[in-house]
């Protein structure tokens, strides 16, 4: 078959030409050090912003070059763990708070000596230190707040949410603003692990016991908190059958002007910038306490890196330099984890929402995700599954929490 020959020839020639080797970390003859950095934080639109930060770092540190690899967020864990298993992990790499403890406990993070700890927000810095040793540096954070459609509130003659609100206020407003016939809903809050540990804290409960070996949420406070979440389905927000829980469902409802209150993260500011109605934010109401969810990403240095010093310098620059702060603020690329409030002043002037101060206020009382060294992902999956069973009406809230307790204890115990 004449066709096969040319193809085979091309292929052979192609292979011969393609024995390129990839970039490796190393020290070249002229003494420059190349460090590798694998990240997910810049994907989805911020690649150029990251490049700006890298360029600034390289300008300030002529002997160091940073090789950046950007991976999709969803599959980052797969690639990172494959690297760790095979020994090809980068010098510096991103981690999420939820996985921090697992990586630290397995010794893959190098202990870091931070030149300027005061530059970081204390609570964020502490989150990544264990037994007094710093293992990672926070690179950004986002908080979850209550968004509201001020036009809908005005039309109904209701007061808009303030920082004094409690669950009771939120519930009353949500019910008053729901008009199912018109397709307008009062209050949307996802039913998932990520919401549960927060509302649990808002109700004075704890997710894990003090040494993290068993759960502590199967209490009256826990049941009340779970009921708070589950009860919204069908009353102030649509049910699962009506689409609740599908990707972007809640934000689309809000964008269409059909949702009065929405619990979501500050990363949505950009998406809501052009809506035709008035909107603003408030700190999430609590019940007995206030507690807001904070998500943060961090960078760690590999324990097996051959250039720990250079890598640490890059990690610090990426997480606390003024260049980084400026880039992030201008691009609306999450919030830098710095302690200097004046540096963040520009953030407050960036436009809608007017009450950006609420973002910083919400940091006063924080609910960090519960983390364990073994079984983190399973714990999260199980919790969400059980809550959704309750939401769908296939179990009672009490039964769901009891089952979650049994199942989770089995995977995290010791």
């Amino acid at each position: 078959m004449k066709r096969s020959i040319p193809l085979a020839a091309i292929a052979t020639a192609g292979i011969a030409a393609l024995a390129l080797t990839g970039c490796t970390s190393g020290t070249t003859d002229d003494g420059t050090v190349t460090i590798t950095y694998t990240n997910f934080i810049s994907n989805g639109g911020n690649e150029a912003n990251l490049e700006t930060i890298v360029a600034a770092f390289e300008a300030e540190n002529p002997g160091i070059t940073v090789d950046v690899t950007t991976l999709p967020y969803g599959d980052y864990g797969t690639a990172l763990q494959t690297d760790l298993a095979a020994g090809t992990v980068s010098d510096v790499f991103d981690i999420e708070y939820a996985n921090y403890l697992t990586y630290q406990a397995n010794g893959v993070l190098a202990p870091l000596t931070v030149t300027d700890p005061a530059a970081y927000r204390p609570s964020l810095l502490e989150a990544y230190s264990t037994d007094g040793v710093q293992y990672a540096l926070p690179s950004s954070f986002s908080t979850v707040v209550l968004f509201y459609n001020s036009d809908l509130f005005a039309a109904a003659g209701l007061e808009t949410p303030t920082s004094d609100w409690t669950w009771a206020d939120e519930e009353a407003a949500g019910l008053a603003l729901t008009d199912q016939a018109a397709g307008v809903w009062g209050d949307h809050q996802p039913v998932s692990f990520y919401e549960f540990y927060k509302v649990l804290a808002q109700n004075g409960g704890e997710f894990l016991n003090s040494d993290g070996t068993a759960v502590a949420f199967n209490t009256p406070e826990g049941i009340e908190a779970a009921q708070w979440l589950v009860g919204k389905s069908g009353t102030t927000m649509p049910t699962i059958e009506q689409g609740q829980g599908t990707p972007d469902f809640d934000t689309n409802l809000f964008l269409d002007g059909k949702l009065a209150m929405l619990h979501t993260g500050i990363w949505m500011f950009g998406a809501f910038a052009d809506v035709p109605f008035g909107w603003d934010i408030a700190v999430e109401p609590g019940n007995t306490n206030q507690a807001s969810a904070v998500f943060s990403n961090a960078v760690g240095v590999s324990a097996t890196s051959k250039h720990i010093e250079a890598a640490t310098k890059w990690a610090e620059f990426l997480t606390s330099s003024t260049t980084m702060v400026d880039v992030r603020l201008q691009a609306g690329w999450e919030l830098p984890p710095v302690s200097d409030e004046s540096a963040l002043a520009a953030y407050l002037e960036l436009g809608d929402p007017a009450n950006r101060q609420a973002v910083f206020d919400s940091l006063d009382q924080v609910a960090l995700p519960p983390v364990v060294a073994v079984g983190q992902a399973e714990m999260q999956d199980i919790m969400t599954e059980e809550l959704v069973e309750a939401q769908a009406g296939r179990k009672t809230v009490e039964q769901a929490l009891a089952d979650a307790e049994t199942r989770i204890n089995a995977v995290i115990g010791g």
Partner: protein
Amino acid sequence: MAERLPAMRRIANPSTRPGMVVLFVVMALGALAMLFPFIWTVVTSITPGAGLSFAPSLIVEDPSLEAYRTLFTERPFARIIGNSLLLATITTAIQLFTSATAAYAFSRLAFRGRTVVFAVYLSTMMIPLQVLIVPLFAQLKAFGLVNTYLGALLPTFASAFGIFLLREAVNQVPRELDEAATLDGAGHLRIFWTVILPNIRPALATLTVFAFMGSWNSFLWPLVVLRAPEMQTLPVALAGLQGQYTTAWDVVMAGSVVSILPMLAIYLFAQRYIVQGVASSGIK
């Protein structure tokens, strides 16, 4: 002289015209069902700032190619598409070669343990890649081929699927043709080249399509082995459009549309060979 056209054509005589019309209508409706999701993908890709609306409409108010522009400016998509094209082409060419030779061996050459070897070949399809990926990656790292095109290509050089497909096709080539060639003094290589290959053209074309498609849509292996931004392949780059918190769905859909086009081109090109079969497939 037997009619060249497939026998089913005989349905198309005047007395069954209505039958053909009904058939056409049914098939056309089916085609619409096949097309519909694709149409929706295109519509979403030209809807600026599209979220995943719960009740999307097919009528776009402000169609714009912004998503496509973003696609090619945010990441080096032209280069990325080039990577995918390169890898897919090489994979396909090599797979055609390795599959055809193996198919010939399994069909025409009797040797001890042929069944066992074939079973072993088939069994390589029975383990999911998710489980092989860590050892495979470690192996390629040992060879120093991480983040290279060769590293991405090597595991794709043989495909049990392709071997199986071609073996079935070679089995259907009548042995009388082999014998005739042998009488003319041909050895195995010449039989392979002049008798077998020309007679399995449809299967070769089919394999071309599937091998190309397999490489084009391959995600997990390129994700793990090709890291540098300029070396990534299309599916990995498209996954990168989905951020940690938010996703620009119009851009994702634009990427999907772009990734379908070369595949479709290959299929339409290969289709002629797949269908052409009758004349060359050993009519008795």
